[in-house]
């Protein structure tokens, strides 16, 4: 519509077959006006009731007769004008009714591929395919595709991204996966019970509304405060259980597979060499059981969980598969004793270790967090020292990674920090040499 000439030229040049999304897709768009109205009614209930009583049956019918076909038409047209195609090196998405938008996503730069199936989509037998690319926004998702189509497309994208020959790429199929770990529902439930956040939100949801009732005597205020609090409590307990239910981590030549969810099923794939940092979180109440949670950072991706709960040894074994050749350092070196002058008590939680492959830094006293950065993923290293730190001959070393996360070794001895800075710059430079290529199956 905007530039038909350019469009035509592109179509001529690219002899690729363009496909449309699953025909169920327009229905998703049809919900939009309905949700807007519901949102308005919830936001301002008094006003909504007054408006509703004023409406007659005829106006309602007319509104329905206008709104529903308009929404359906809009949904249909957006579906009609959305195309996607897979070429040898790119995934191309063309979309937009008035404002045209063409996204070309380079396959070797893919950081993760997710296939998600919300509950309704599961019933309809469709799935959403989402690609994480650095710097791209959320719009680059294909919703919806048929469930089987989404799976074959994922396999094809990964095969092409891995560097298989273009002719054979769509015949490679799903790479065989080997299951590493499956979280039993019982363990997940216990782990959530032993989490402070669950009880904190629940206590807030139970205590705050009665207090407000005593103070204001207004039902609406109590509801306005209580409902979001109840929602938060539900999300942090039941919601997390439902989302993390049946958490399965598997390994395949295409990378790491994470499958999860009770109602909404999510299948994530992180290709090899995309993990920037791994964090081992150890809440206070889990320590007696020896459980840990493992989080990971991938550039351009919002997903951050690797294992919701697992025994420490198993978690370390999984980490060794995620970051090849990495062992979690068993002992960490603490800051010198005078660090207590800068940060009383809490300095005891800090610690670092440097091995051949990773830079590891721990912080937190009650809830310990150990962050691991492979040397090959370090983007820059910084040494920072304020006046108070200098008085005590201490300094901080920041290690920046590509996922916009900074791992910091705090309160180190100044000379040790300078040594660390120089050594880390050297290691991060050389660490890249034996890293795998972007196209991980291509012959070097």
């Amino acid at each position, binding site marked *: 519509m905007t530039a038909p000439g350019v469009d035509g030229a592109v179509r001529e040049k690219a002899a690729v077959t363009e496909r449309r999304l699953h025909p169920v897709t327009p229905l998703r768009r049809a919900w939009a006006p309905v949700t807007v109205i519901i949102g308005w009614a919830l936001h301002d209930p008094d006003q909504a009731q007054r408006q509703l009583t004023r409406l007659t049956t005829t106006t309602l019918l007319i509104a329905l007769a206008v709104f529903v076909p308009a929404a359906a038409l809009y949904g249909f047209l957006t579906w009609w004008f959305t195309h996607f195609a897979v070429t040898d090196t790119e995934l191309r998405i063309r979309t937009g009714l008035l404002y045209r938008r063409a996204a070309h996503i380079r396959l070797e730069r893919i950081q993760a591929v997710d296939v998600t199936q919300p509950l309704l989509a599961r019933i309809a037998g469709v799935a959403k395919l989402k690609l994480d690319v650095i710097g791209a926004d959320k719009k680059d998702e294909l919703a919806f595709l048929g469930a089987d189509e989404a799976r074959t497309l994922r396999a094809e994208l990964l095969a092409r991204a891995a560097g298989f020959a273009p002719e054979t790429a769509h015949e490679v199929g799903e790479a065989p996966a080997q299951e590493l770990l499956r979280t039993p529902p019982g363990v997940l439930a216990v782990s959530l019970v032993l989490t402070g956040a669950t009880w904190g939100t629940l206590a807030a949801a139970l205590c705050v509304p009665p207090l407000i009732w005593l103070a204001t005597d207004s039902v609406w205020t109590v509801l306005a405060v209580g409902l979001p609090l109840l929602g938060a409590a539900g999300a942090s307990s039941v919601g997390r259980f439902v989302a993390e239910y049946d958490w399965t981590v598997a390994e395949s030549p295409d990378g790491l597979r994470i499958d999860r969810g009770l109602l909404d099923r999510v299948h994530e794939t992180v290709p090899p060499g*995309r993990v920037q940092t791994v964090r081992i979180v150890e809440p206070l109440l889990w320590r007696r059981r020896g459980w840990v949670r493992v989080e990971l950072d991938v550039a351009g991706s919002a997903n951050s969980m690797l294992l919701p709960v697992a025994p420490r040894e198993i978690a370390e074994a999984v980490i060794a598969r995620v970051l090849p050749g990495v062992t979690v350092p068993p002992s960490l070196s603490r800051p010198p004793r005078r660090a207590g002058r800068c940060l009383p008590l809490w300095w005891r939680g800090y610690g670092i270790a440097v091995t051949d492959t990773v830079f590891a830094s721990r912080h937190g006293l009650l809830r310990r967090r150990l962050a691991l950065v492979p040397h090959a993923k370090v*983007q820059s*290293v910084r040494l920072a020292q304020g006046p108070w730190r200098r008085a005590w001959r201490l300094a901080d070393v920041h290690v920046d990674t590509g996922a*916009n996360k900074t791992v910091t070794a705090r309160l180190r001895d100044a000379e040790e920090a300078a040594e660390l800075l*120089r050594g880390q710059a050297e290691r991060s430079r050389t660490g890249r040499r034996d890293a795998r290529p972007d196209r991980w199956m291509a012959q070097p």
Partner: protein
Amino acid sequence: METGSRENPEAAGVEPAWTGLPPGLLRMRRWLLAVWLGLLTAATGVLLGVFAGPVWAAFALLPLALLTGGWVMVERNWRSWRYAERADDLLISRGVLWRELTVVPYGRMQLVEVTSGPVERHFGLASVQLHTAAAATDATIPGLDPVEAERLRDRLTELGQARSAGL
């Protein structure tokens, strides 16, 4: 004068060849400082003197004190800025009280930017900024000579291409 540049945290190993900044940045910052605080001093003095009496006009000494303090601090800060091009990485060191030393391997550079605002251009200055995939990397060298800035940009780009490693 005691500055951050003399005792540096890297002293233990091989000393890299540090380059300081040309005096243009110092001139520009002092000029900006003098203009703004001078205007503030004059405005406070005149307004308070006219509307509240000559005693109140003594408040004009406050910005004047800031001006003299700033005059010295700007120089110390300017002296603390320096950078070194090593074989495989760029070092940037800065700060007097809050010191920071940044190391960026050439292979990790995604983009090198040379910027120059109107005031900087008037003083014949340009800044070089390096971007890596990590947004936290804060590697900027301000107040360079435009010729030096362009030389640095070309050299960094060249080295970055030769050693490119990406993410």
